[in-house]
């Protein structure tokens, strides 16, 4: 609770009372009565998280079973009737080369996205921020945001129509006597393709947060540094980027925590174009085994592994953010 230090105007007695109230003075009942409005306001959100996030976590027990949703009248009760198999699903998982392919693809894709995708919105934000004319700025922002609202099916179809083997570029080349090419079915460049699609679709959207951060930089700082003779680049390096640093660190931590989530729909739609060897990531692997093959326990085990690794990553990233002197996602 953001209990700021009391106004200088308050009396000592009031101060003491406030101190008591804030720091464990008074029983739970007292504190509850004081905060009930706030508690009441958080209740719907807590309920949502509880029902849709925490309770389903319990369902992970099927990873230690040979779960058959049809052994009883409903799938939930079936958990109690399915046989326990210990870590068998996990040993099956770790023995499966397809799983390790998926892990590798996921990590490589994450690395590529981090290097090639993550900086793009920052650069775009700097660019837009430097545009002075409001009209130009509004129009270019709108154009940048727009692709975010296209569905993946559409984005991939557009890419296919342009870069596919029968796409505009290949056909134009052929008409002029050159060889055509097909970027969409080449497993070797698939990961770059996926990253490029992501940049095209979502980089503009990612700009919003950074623009907000840039808007909060006081113009005084720019003026002062300009007075001191700092050029364009110096101002960016010493004023703009430091202002963005906490936001960048925060988003980086969040992104790392999500490292194993590299896109589901986008990849599923193109999985067959290059084969699972190049395109299977953890999420599609779980979907394929759980939903398509109905191997629920196996898929749950894969999902659990992903969850645990993600947790480790987010903790590590947060720690690194602290070491860099940033807030990160949370602090003890």
């Amino acid at each position, binding site marked *: 609770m953001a209990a700021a230090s009391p106004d200088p105007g308050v009396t000592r007695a009031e101060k003491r009372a406030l101190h008591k109230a804030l720091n464990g003075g008074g029983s739970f009942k007292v504190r509850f009565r004081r905060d009930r409005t706030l508690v009441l306001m958080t209740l719907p959100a807590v309920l949502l998280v509880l029902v849709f996030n925490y309770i389903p976590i319990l369902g992970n027990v099927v990873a230690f079973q*040979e779960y058959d949703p*049809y*052994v009883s*009248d*409903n799938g939930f009760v079936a958990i109690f009737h399915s046989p326990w198999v210990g870590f068998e699903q996990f040993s099956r998982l770790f023995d499966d080369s397809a799983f390790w392919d998926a892990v590798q693809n996921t990590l490589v894709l994450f690395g590529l996205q981090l290097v090639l995708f993550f900086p793009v919105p920052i650069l775009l934000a700097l660019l837009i921020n430097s545009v002075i004319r409001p009209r130009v700025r509004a129009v270019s922002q709108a154009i940048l945001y727009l692709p975010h609202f296209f569905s993946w099916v559409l984005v991939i*179809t557009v890419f296919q129509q342009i870069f596919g*083997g029968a796409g505009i570029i290949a056909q134009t080349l052929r008409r002029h006597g050159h060889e055509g090419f*097909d970027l969409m079915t080449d497993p070797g460049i698939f990961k770059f393709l996926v990253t490029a699609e992501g940049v095209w679709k979502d980089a503009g959207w990612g700009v919003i947060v950074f623009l907000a951060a840039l808007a909060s930089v006081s113009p005084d700082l720019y003026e002062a540094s300009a007075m001191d003779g700092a050029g364009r680049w110096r101002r960016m390096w010493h004023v703009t980027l430091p202002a963005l640093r906490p936001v960048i660190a925060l988003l980086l931590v969040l992104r790392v925590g999500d490292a194993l989530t590299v896109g589901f729909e986008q990849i599923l739609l193109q999985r067959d174009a290059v084969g699972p060897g190049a395109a299977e990531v953890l999420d599609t692997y779980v979907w394929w085994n759980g939903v398509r*093959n*109905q191997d629920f326990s196996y898929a749950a085990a894969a999902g659990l592994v992903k969850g645990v690794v993600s947790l480790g990553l987010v903790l590590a990233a947060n720690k690194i953010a602290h070491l860099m002197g940033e807030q990160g996602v949370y602090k003890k």
Partner: protein
Amino acid sequence: MTPNTSASGPGRRSFLASTAVATVAVAGGMPLLAACGGSDSDKKEGTTSGKDAKKILPTFVAQNVVTPDIASKNGSSLGFTSKLVTADLKTSVSGKLGKGSTIKIMSPFWGSPPKGDNPYYKAMNDKIGANVVWQNQDGNTYDEKLGAVLASSDMPDVVVIPGWNMGGKIPSAIISKMADLGPYLSGDKVKDYPNLAAVPTDAWQRSIFGGKLRGLPMPSSYVANIVPYYRKDIFDDKGYELPTSAAEFLALAKEITSARAKVWACDDMKWTAFNSFGVLSGSEKPLGWNLVGGKLVYRVETDEYLEALEWTRKLYSAGVVHPDAKAQNQGDSGLRFTAGEVLIYNNDISHWWAKTTEQAAQNKDFRIDGMDIFGHDGGDPTLWAGAPASIFAFVNKKASKAVIQDVLAAANVTAAPYGTEEYMLTNYGVEGTHYTVKDGTPTKNDKGNLEVLNAFVMLASPASTIAHPDLPEIAKAQVAWQQRMGAFTKKSSFYGLQIIEPARYTNLSNDFEQLEDDIVRGRKKISDMQQAVADWKSQGGDKLRDWYGKLLDDSGSAQG
């Protein structure tokens, strides 16, 4: 099967079938059949045949309402080509059998479902004497919803499940959650429902799950349903000759392809390759097993399988396959065909009629024709029979007797044969409201195309029928193709049986389909397949062979 001139394409039955096949093509080697664990009183794996099946199967009583213009031969569908005279329509259901229950049915639907209280549903419900309420789900993603619905305690009264959605634990769900219809249909009891009694026994045999008659089948022809189509108009114009061997096909394909002009010879031809090289059926796992020289072999173990893949790979590497087909998920092969970007594609036999009517208004020159499946070496092909029924409606075990009887009453209406009022109502709707008959050709209007779609035809159907009074030459060509191909068709060891494999093997063969696609597109090698087959053997394939062997000893082979 249903003459209508919807711009959006085929009539519901043919559309349904074509989508079904598209899905099969996608899910080909996938678990079309599987088993389950648990210990219930019901038999959970294996099959039911011979004497045991005889006790359960309904008695067949032919329903000679209308004599087909082309009789069934070599396993073909019945062909109807003559003009339709409304006044001559027979009545196969006298009075209402239904007792007015409300029946909720979940069924896959391809397209946009109409509103629930439309005149077509009302007319059907009136005819049946029950209140059928449809809960339609997108047919293309049906398998993603099916599992959850079957696992819930709030299952609808009837669930329609196509064979290609019976992966993983679905068969186990069917056995533990669906009603035994035997008490209502076995033996002479079926005579209460004359149209159901006329459903071929082969289709009923396939409806036995876990030792009980649980399904209401949609019968189909067992002859290969994937036709290699070609653009007859362009072939005639350019003077291309139809290929009669795999080598000729490749040579022709190279001649046709001109990427510069945006013309490729063909779309993905893997399924035709399997047929041409005589590979055992991949439509259902048990059909892929066959007794050869006293030993059971599975389709992936055969040389034919590898040869077919190798030939398909050659097509891809020669650059004669459309690039969008290589990208697989990109668009519909039928669209590339009608646009003239590919001149050969393979798809369900229903496309023959569907594409013809679809293009009649848009492209007057368009002609589609099916080429005979050529033996890869230029000789006669060896084809393997598919399943004589692959879509079933199941009734919830918890449904009351009254509801079950009303479901059967509804099925008795939808299974009415061609030439009856009930057939016309089920397939065309109400005359005047949904279709008009002109010169003996029934044509659906916009309302008919919107409302008379998918739903009721999913419940149970008459013997496989091809009826196109609007395009009699197409109907003739389709049935004739089936009869010619039927002559080359053999039945593998487990033809016609509904077999549920033990739970531990259900996912064993799941990855072959994917690997096939990787190999033909040049991403993996034939040797990868050989390795996968070796792994398959050691990981349970050989044990599964023993299991099938025992089943064969117990049940006897379809080969006789």
